[in-house]
């Protein structure tokens, strides 16, 4: 087999995979905005081709020895060059495939979910933009290119979260997401600058090589790692920048599915994976990351215990699962994080899509109401939902069990047992909150009396009449496929581990397998599910969780540990009244004054000059003449 030919084909596939969504975005925005069917078709068509390309790439390079890097140079002038291109290695190939698969399925699903929405072309255009940004982020060979698409991902998620911009809360949520992630991005940008100053370029392969560690002093290394970690915190909604994610539920549900599983928040963890060796060089940053990951994981789990909004529950679970991934990575177990990212993408997308069907049908987000209105009558979504929740809880033999187990193993290797204990506790909570909504929906209590039941049955009839079955199945097929993936992915652990381990990364240790850990994990998961059953599933259960029995704790969790209040207070008091008042004064008096002065002066000068140009032709000729003569005079001095 001729090698150049192969690499050319690879390059072609990579270009196609990343560029087609952009093309469909442009075409839809420019030409087919008024034809929703064509737009959707275009966008799905483009996505399916890029899916094929991504799978082809994964298949082609299943046995790769070293990362492939394609670099072009953009704008070479003098000594300045900005390289761009593709970096194909196991990390990016796997992620590319994950993004493509999830994106494709969600686009199909959206056909049913968004049917009849007036903005469907816009929706598909933004979706394509989003996927383009994410896929290009995945294959970026330099931190600079990655950063560009990182911002684009943020921008397009802003557009999608605020998709129903008529809704005030939706546009507010969009803004919140944008601003909070921006706060992290500023830190990340500073970190990038630090690296750039010391390394001279931002090539990921070079940052990952030990050469960087040799060039920077340990402190600077830690500092830059922490700054970049700041970007990850913002993007992956970790503590303390976590509150935007639950609010981001305002967008259409498929968007949430995409956002939570494989694109927006996953980008943060992906960056961590990408720069894993770099972080590995700085133990302090690793410990800090471990701390943040654990904290976010626990906080989010507790928040998920009490909320009644089904999408919010999954949103909190995303935060806590991302916390798990970061814990795993920070514990030095590279593969565990990557693997959990992959399995999580599948089951989290599945969870959201299932909830999407429920929400779409019953038009409510409240789990109790969903149960009352007959959520259990939707067999396929509920079955899939159970599978996904099982994976989330870490029940064997679902995929989540394997990946979470790997993380726990990684944590068990650490000398400090605190992390492991916290993670185990988190696993218990996860199992509990994952099954709480399931049981509530499956076993509704007719607490509010007969009429409710009646109306529930009638709505479900309405549903079968109102929504054509083709829409239902459009949404159903992706669910079944994803459920299959959730079931099977766990057994791909060994081949994937082999695949990921091929390009030897530092810090990947051979991990022993303590058997007791496995059992503890299973016991805790089953225990969590059991507790949920006791409180919500049993025939005579009151459907009141143990947390809700302690009002103080309940309020604390429901108010998100008062984080939003704190931000509100902070923004209001410290920033608005203190700092910003000062700056406003400065703005008004000094800056505005001078800027106004300058701009007014500019405009006035413009008027004056254009006035001067209105003179008679003789004067113009005179002016030309005089200027030339004066220029000649200049020679004598």
């Amino acid at each position, binding site marked *: 087999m001729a090698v150049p030919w192969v690499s050319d084909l690879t390059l072609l596939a990579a270009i196609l995979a990343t560029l087609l969504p952009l093309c469909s975005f442009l075409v839809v925005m420019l030409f087919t905005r008024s034809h929703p069917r064509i737009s959707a078709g275009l966008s799905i068509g483009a996505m399916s081709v890029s899916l094929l390309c991504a799978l082809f790439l994964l298949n082609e390079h299943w046995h790769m020895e070293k990362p492939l890097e394609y670099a072009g140079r953009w704008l070479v002038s003098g000594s300045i060059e900005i390289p761009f291109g593709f970096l194909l290695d196991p990390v990016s190939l796997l992620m590319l495939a994950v993004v493509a698969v999830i994106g494709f399925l969600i686009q199909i699903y959206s056909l049913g979910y968004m049917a009849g929405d007036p903005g469907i072309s816009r929706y598909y255009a933004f979706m394509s933009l989003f996927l383009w940004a994410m896929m290009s982020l995945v294959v970026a060979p330099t931190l600079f290119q990655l950063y560009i698409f990182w911002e684009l991902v943020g921008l397009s998620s802003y557009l999608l979260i605020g998709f129903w911009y008529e809704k005030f809360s939706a546009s507010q949520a969009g803004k919140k997401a944008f601003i909070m992630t921006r706060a992290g991005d500023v830190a990340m940008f500073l970190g990038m600058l630090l690296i750039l100053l010391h390394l001279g370029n931002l090539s990921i392969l070079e940052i990952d090589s030990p050469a960087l560690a040799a060039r920077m002093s340990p402190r600077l290394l830690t500092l830059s790692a922490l700054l970049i970690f700041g970007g990850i915190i913002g993007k992956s909604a970790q503590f303390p920048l976590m509150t935007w994610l639950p609010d981001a539920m305002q967008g259409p549900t498929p968007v949430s599915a995409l956002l939570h599983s494989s694109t927006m928040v996953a980008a943060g963890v992906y960056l961590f994976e990408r720069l894993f060796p770099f972080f590995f060089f700085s133990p302090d940053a690793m410990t800090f990351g471990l701390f943040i990951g654990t904290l976010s994981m626990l906080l989010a789990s507790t928040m998920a215990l009490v909320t009644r909004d089904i999408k919010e529950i999954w949103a909190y679970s995303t935060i806590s699962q991302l916390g798990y991934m970061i814990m795993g990575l920070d514990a030095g177990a590279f593969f565990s994080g990557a693997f959990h990212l992959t399995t999580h993408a599948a089951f989290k997308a599945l969870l959201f899509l299932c909830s999407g069907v429920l929400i779409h049908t019953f038009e409510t987000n409240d789990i109790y109401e969903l149960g009352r209105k007959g959520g259990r009558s939707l067999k396929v979504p509920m079955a899939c939902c159970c599978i996904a929740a099982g994976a989330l809880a870490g029940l064997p033999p679902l995929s989540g069990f394997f990946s979470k187990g790997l993380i726990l193993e990684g944590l068990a290797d650490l000398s400090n047992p605190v992390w492991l204990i916290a993670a185990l506790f988190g696993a218990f909570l996860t199992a509990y909150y994952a099954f709480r909504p399931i049981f509530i929906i499956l076993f509704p209590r007719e607490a509010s009396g007969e009429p409710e039941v009646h109306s529930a049955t009638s709505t479900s009839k309405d549903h079968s009449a109102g929504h054509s079955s083709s829409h239902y199945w459009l949404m159903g097929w992706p669910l079944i496929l994803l459920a299959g993936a959730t079931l099977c992915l766990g057994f791909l652990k060994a081949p994937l581990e082999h695949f990921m381990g091929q390009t030897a990364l530092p810090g990947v240790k051979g991990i022993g397998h303590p058997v007791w850990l496995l059992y503890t994990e299973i016991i805790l998961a089953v225990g969590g599910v059991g507790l949920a059953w006791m409180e919500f599933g049993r025939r005579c259960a009151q459907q009141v969780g143990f947390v809700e029995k302690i009002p103080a704790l309940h309020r604390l969790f429901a108010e998100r540990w008062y984080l939003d209040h704190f931000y509100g207070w902070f923004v209001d008091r410290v920033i608005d009244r203190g700092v910003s008042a000062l700056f406003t004064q400065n703005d008004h008096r000094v800056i505005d004054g001078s800027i106004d002065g300058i701009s007014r002066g500019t405009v006035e000068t413009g008027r004056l000059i254009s006035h001067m140009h209105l003179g008679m032709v003789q*004067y113009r000729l*005179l002016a030309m*003449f*005089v200027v030339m*003569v*004066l220029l*000649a*005079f200049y*020679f*004598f001095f």
Partner: protein
Amino acid sequence: MSFLIGTEAIAHVAFWIVVGLTFGGAVIAVFPRNIIYNVLGLVMALSGVAGLYLYLGSFFIALMQLLIYVGAICISIVFAIMLSRPLHLEVPKRSVPKVAMAAGASAIFFAAVVGVIFKSNWVPAPEQSGDWSVVTIGHLLLTRYDLVFEVISLVLLVAIIGAIVTAGYSRRFSS
């Protein structure tokens, strides 16, 4: 009085006459208020310049100067005057600022030219090499400068079209 009859003296006298013609013509071209006088002054000045060429030994250029500037350009200016403002109408007053500006511009131009002349270390012109007769010029026009020659014909074509177009304008304008 031998200096009066020497050829060199005659040449001197001729030179100063020619210079006088040029300057006098220039003054007449600028100052009188009657535009016909101005044109006649221009004719005088240009003839003076032709005399200077003669003095420098360029018969051909002197001839061309007379033919083109005195013969063609000044006559067309006269035509232009005839076709424009009737002479019996009152002439607009001179405005002092305009005169001042014109005088200032001319003054600095003069200064610049003088500066250039004094700053440059002029080399004596090379001796006339070869033959600069009309035959040679004609020859050169059709060999070395044939591109220029042909392009000039295009320029004339375009100029004629322009004349037709603008003539159409004035015809419509007057009717």
